[in-house]
């Protein structure tokens, strides 16, 4: 697969499939987000990047033994870990015994919001979400730092100095 365009589109489809799996696994909020972000925004950004760069990958013969070893070792470690996990669907798994019951049983009464994901997200773990919002803010600031240009002004020449005083740099 040396056509990057195809790779990016497949990645988008992969995200969409993943979103459907999340629906089956009862994570509707997550599926919604994955579909909007993974299949939507990420794909748009990748296509944008492709249009600014190159859309074909060069074919290289790279010795890829070391990465293979690293990946196999990581995979083996995970397989080892996974083999001891509680079974899929098991209602007696530790995750369902501690902390979560409180959210499930009490939160609709305590907070009065039917969607538990919303109440956990915004209230119980609201600080995490504040951090998450800061991550997005950081991404915006970071992309502007990297790609932002001095604001193009029609009167660029005579206001070169005054324009440059403004730190904001969209577009």
């Amino acid at each position, binding site marked *: 697969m040396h056509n990057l365009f195809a790779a990016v589109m497949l990645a988008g489809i992969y995200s969409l499939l993943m979103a459907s799996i999340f629906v089956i696994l009862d994570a509707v909020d997550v599926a919604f987000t994955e579909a909007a972000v993974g299949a939507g925004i990420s794909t748009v950004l990748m296509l944008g990047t492709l249009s600014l760069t190159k859309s074909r990958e060069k074919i290289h013969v790279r010795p890829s033994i070391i990465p293979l070893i690293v990946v196999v070792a990581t995979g083996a470690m995970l397989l*080892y870990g996974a083999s001891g*996990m509680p079974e899929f669907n098991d209602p007696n798994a530790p995750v369902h*015994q*501690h902390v979560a019951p409180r959210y499930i049983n009490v939160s609709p009464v305590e907070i009065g919001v039917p969607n538990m994901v919303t109440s956990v997200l915004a209230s*119980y*773990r609201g600080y995490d979400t504040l951090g998450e919002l800061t991550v997005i803010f*950081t991404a915006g600031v970071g992309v502007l730092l990297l790609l932002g240009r001095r604001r193009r002004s029609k009167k660029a020449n005579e206001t070169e100095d005054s324009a440059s005083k*403004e730190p904001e740099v969209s577009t």
Partner: protein
Amino acid sequence: MIAAHLPALQIAVPLIAAPICLLLRRENLSWAWATFISWVVFALAWVMLEKTLTGGAFNYELGGWEAPYGIEYRVDALNAFILLIVAAIGAVVMPYARASVAREIPEHKRGLFYTAYLLCLTGLLGITITGDAFNVFVFLEISSLSSYALIALGRDPKALTAAFQYLIMGTIGATFILIGIGLMYQMTGTLNMADLAKRLPAVEDTRPVLAAFAFFIVGVCLKLALFPLHLWLPNAYAYAPSVVTAFLAATATKVSIYVLYRFVFTIFGQSFSFDVIPLESILLVLSLAGIFAASIVAIFQTNVKRLLAYSSVAQIGYIMLGVALVSVAGLTASILHIFNHAIMKGALFLCMGAVYYQIGSVKIEDMNGIGKKMPFTMFAFVIAGLGLIGVPLTVGFISKWYLITAVLEKGWWPVAVLILLSSLLAVIYIWRVVEAAYFKAGDSDDVVVKEAPVSMLIPIYVLTGASVYFGIETSLPLGTAAEAAKQLMGIGG
């Protein structure tokens, strides 16, 4: 009211300051605002350390939800000390930043630069203060994303590739940490650190927990640049803007080391980390290998910032060596060296920033004769460099002394000899810079090179002065480090 909400303010103040900084739109205003905030943060961290040292550890429940259900902060001697280090470096670097940033960053990006700086500070403080495992990941990403962007601002195009490499390796590290946290959560059903510590022993011999430990350690070691996972660090530090290098070198890896302490000692517990899994032998080998490999590579560098970056990898080796000892004395030395190394490396990188400010290069051959042209800057470099070697009356000596004492306490005298030998390597690489600066004639008909501006010299001398002051008057860092080490080992506290 402020006293009760200290921990929340510690994070919320820089966090809310970042969007305000973005709105200020004037370079000078942004700088003044970021400086003001960084000093407020420093003051808060100072008060909090006082509070933990006198009143012991305390919690703060965010959103008013009690611990395993909501997220809580937990502040004890260890993280109050790390908070102070981060906040102090953040505050000292800011006055310096103005001149340096004016020289190195395009004008329209400076407001954004200060915003990203505040975000990075927020992220690092947030990782340190939190008592929730997943929250560590969130704030880790805030600090990482902002540092990728900050590093990419370096003037050399290599800064871009360095930032990209850091982004890839940093994200792999963070994802490994995420896997580790997920597996821990799977076996315990909780994310709160104290709760995890309580519930993990019951399941500690299950396979997912072993895998969680492995993934977590590898992820954190990527972030803290333990040899041989340090590949992202030298280029990132060498090509980032001077201010960013000084700030990150003094704080970012230190915070990751804190995360390692917290998970290895507090959450998994030392019996699991060191008895079930032979972490100490792994760390011992890797840290010794790191000390030597990185020091030797440092000797052959021509770019002084890169040289210092390799030296950082070596110093991380000393810090991890202290962990590998698994004793109160070893941990004390380790925590002490975090503090001391932050001061010394901060000072050294600030000196290099001043040199870059004046001559536009940090290559050794461009620094010939610079000792006469920039006497104050290079004098500070020599003093801080002596600290790095471990000469008495500097902080470097104190931490090496305690490290060697701790090693000998274990009876590992060959390791002690190796530590002394490695100091000789530090002599060589510092000497190469000193030789160029003082003993090689520069081009006298070169452009007139002047001393760096006072606004840059003062922060340099604050840190250099601290590296001498705390080399003589050791009670504050040593007392705190010893207290923190005892708490980590579960003795007293």
